[in-house]
């Protein structure tokens, strides 16, 4: 027979256990928002209808016309590493396809700093949205952009193109075969085999806000970036860190994105204190025919991974 004390114990323990059970009850594993029934109903009502003319009129009405000027400005600047830049690194090849692929290693291009000027190469600068495009830029957008490789390196490390612009994937090696894998989100992915001297045409179907990696399965150290944009306002900084973009529409609110492969911001956003926001975007409106010089933009080591 159970003693009183024991029974007390058992009952109290039982009560506590029971409460513990309830604590675990009804817990939701996700903190994502629940759908709002009336919004769902309102949207679904539209999905069923087949007359789109009305809907287009309504959606047009919600987009306010962007105020814009009539002239064309420009943007220049240069990126410089603040302090002592990291020593250039070599990526090991394991002796694969030597001597075409340097058996001592291939130069790591994830952060290239010029030893003299400390200029940072391969910083991508692009204008996110524009309301008009200068006529001189239309021609360039239809010319093929060549994306070549030699000595087991991509010859262009960051290549901005315009959507639908022909991109020629090329292999200029004498004796080494490559392949170029490009898998842009929600766009046609390709991965053609490129024998020595081979080439393959490609075109992006939709713009991206983050550069798409281009890689070679055979030589895994090979990695470069291509970004398709819906406007031709982009530039990549040269070996001395300089960049310039001409004929930018003035008089409108621009969002100028800075990106670098090794930048520490989310998805490569290059965040510069006092110049950009937390997503690496410079918000700026160009005055009439204004030539904006951002000057020397100093980037500390903390801006990079």
């Amino acid at each position, binding site marked *: 027979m159970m003693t009183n004390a024991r029974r*007390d114990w058992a009952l*109290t323990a*039982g*009560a506590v256990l029971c*409460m513990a*059970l*309830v604590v675990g*009850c*009804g817990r*939701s594993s*996700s903190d*994502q*928002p629940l*759908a*709002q029934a*009336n*919004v*769902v109903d309102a*949207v*679904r*009502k*539209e*999905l*069923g209808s087949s007359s*789109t003319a009305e*809907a287009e009129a*309504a*959606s047009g009405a*919600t987009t306010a016309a962007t105020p814009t000027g009539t002239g064309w400005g420009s943007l220049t600047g240069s990126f410089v590493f603040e302090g002592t830049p990291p020593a250039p690194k070599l990526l090991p090849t*394991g002796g694969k396809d030597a*001597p075409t692929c340097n058996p001592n290693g291939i130069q790591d291009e994830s952060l290239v700093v010029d030893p003299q000027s400390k200029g940072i190469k391969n910083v991508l600068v692009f204008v*996110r949205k524009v309301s008009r495009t200068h006529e001189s830029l239309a021609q360039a957008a239809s010319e093929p952009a060549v994306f070549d490789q030699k000595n087991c390196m991509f010859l262009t490390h960051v290549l901005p193109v315009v959507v639908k612009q022909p991109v020629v994937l090329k292999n200029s090696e*004498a*004796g*080494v*075969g490559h*392949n170029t*894998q490009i898998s842009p*989100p*929600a766009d*046609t*992915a390709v*991965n053609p*085999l490129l*024998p*020595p001297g081979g080439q393959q045409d490609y075109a992006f179907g939709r713009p991206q*806000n983050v550069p798409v*990696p281009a*890689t070679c*399965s*055979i030589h*895994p150290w090979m990695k470069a970036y291509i970004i398709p944009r819906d406007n031709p306002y982009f530039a990549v900084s040269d070996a001395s860190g300089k960049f310039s973009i001409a004929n930018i529409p003035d008089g409108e609110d621009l*969002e100028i994105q800075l990106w670098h492969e090794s930048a520490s911001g*989310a*998805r490569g956003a290059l965040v510069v*204190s*006092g110049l950009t*926001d*937390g*997503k690496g975007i410079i918000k700026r409106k160009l005055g009439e025919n204004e030539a904006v010089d951002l000057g020397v933009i100093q980037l500390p080591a903390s801006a990079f991974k």
Partner: protein
Amino acid sequence: MSNLHAPRNLFRALAFLACGAALVGCGQSDAARFRLNMDGRDPTFASYEVQADEAKTSEESKQFREDRKVAIANEKVRQQLVVDLLTAGFGTPDEPFAPSDLGLDIARLRRAAGPVASYQSGQQHGLYRKHCAHCHGISGDGAGPTALFLNPYPRDYRPGVFKFTSTGPGMKPTRADLERTIREGLAGTAMPSFATLPQFEVDALIEYVIYLSIRGETETLLNAAFEGEELEPIDLKADAAKQQEQATALAERLKSEAADRASLWTAAVDTIVVPNQEAIPPFLPAEGTAEWQASVERGRVLFRDSKTANCIKCHGLTALGDGGGEELFDDWNKAKPANTKPEIALWELPKQELRPRNLRLGIYRGGRRPADLYRRIHVGIKGTPMPAAGNVLTQPGQIWDIVNYVLSLPYEASGEAKPTQPSVAQAP
């Protein structure tokens, strides 16, 4: 004595009573929900939260923190809009919906969706949850409860990429491709064969997989479209006309994105790769020993030739899958940080390496028919490092010869695996 026990007795009585009351409502789980692509998975979307935590400790300027506050608020609005739009456009796991212009069969979707149920007539419902969801997940994210224990991981349908198709580079699979995967399974993986299911059940599952894929891709596209926009939440207190106006504009965006995705599924059929019909060699020695032997030999040369097919670079000279030596990843895993980095904690499934196939095992994931292997070589394996060689192997019969060589490999004694010709790997 009894006074001494009174508080404890009271506590017990109250505790039992409270528990009893609370448990009445317990045990009934919430209705199944689709998980957002960015829900605790994809660091691109989780990054704001992470950065906000970091910002507390770092010496960032006030402006930065302000920006982040705005960004996080915008992110919440975006999540709400995406959930509302997707629920409107695609319904819920229990009640699927598809706008009529997507070409999805709603009756099939209903059969596949919802909780598992069977009726006296023998009809089954909830087929996806019965057969697929424990690996592929309720949302088709390839992260069901079993996924962590599998190699390779189950397919995540949301990026809209499927490895084994009969269609051209970058194209979606056909319904017939998905049917073959469901009916025959994928040899060498955890994907079993569902050959015993009746046709109408297989059709329902195919429809549901396409539906989950279009839904997942549409979500990605909506997120991209909303990115960088100052989003306005739908004002629930506004009058009905104003609300409807906002809803109309949003519905239009959803429609165009979803229709764009759905059109790719219909376009895929036109890109089917038809294997060369002119130079089909015998596939068995019994069909003509000399010709078969010659085809295998030509295939061997191509397999090793760095100027054309170059298969040895990954599959190796002996085709054991040891040609590269480097770590390779498919696109689903490539996006993830290395398993040693702290950010990997944001992903449910750790980064998983992909090996070039050992061709001496005689196990072919994409099917063992010569035509299956022909297509693997011609268009590659989508979302993986295996490239498309169709643009290079343009002579009639070249791909068939490699198919013959590959098919002969499991029957070659291991002693014969020694390099019998000068290795092309050493060519300059």
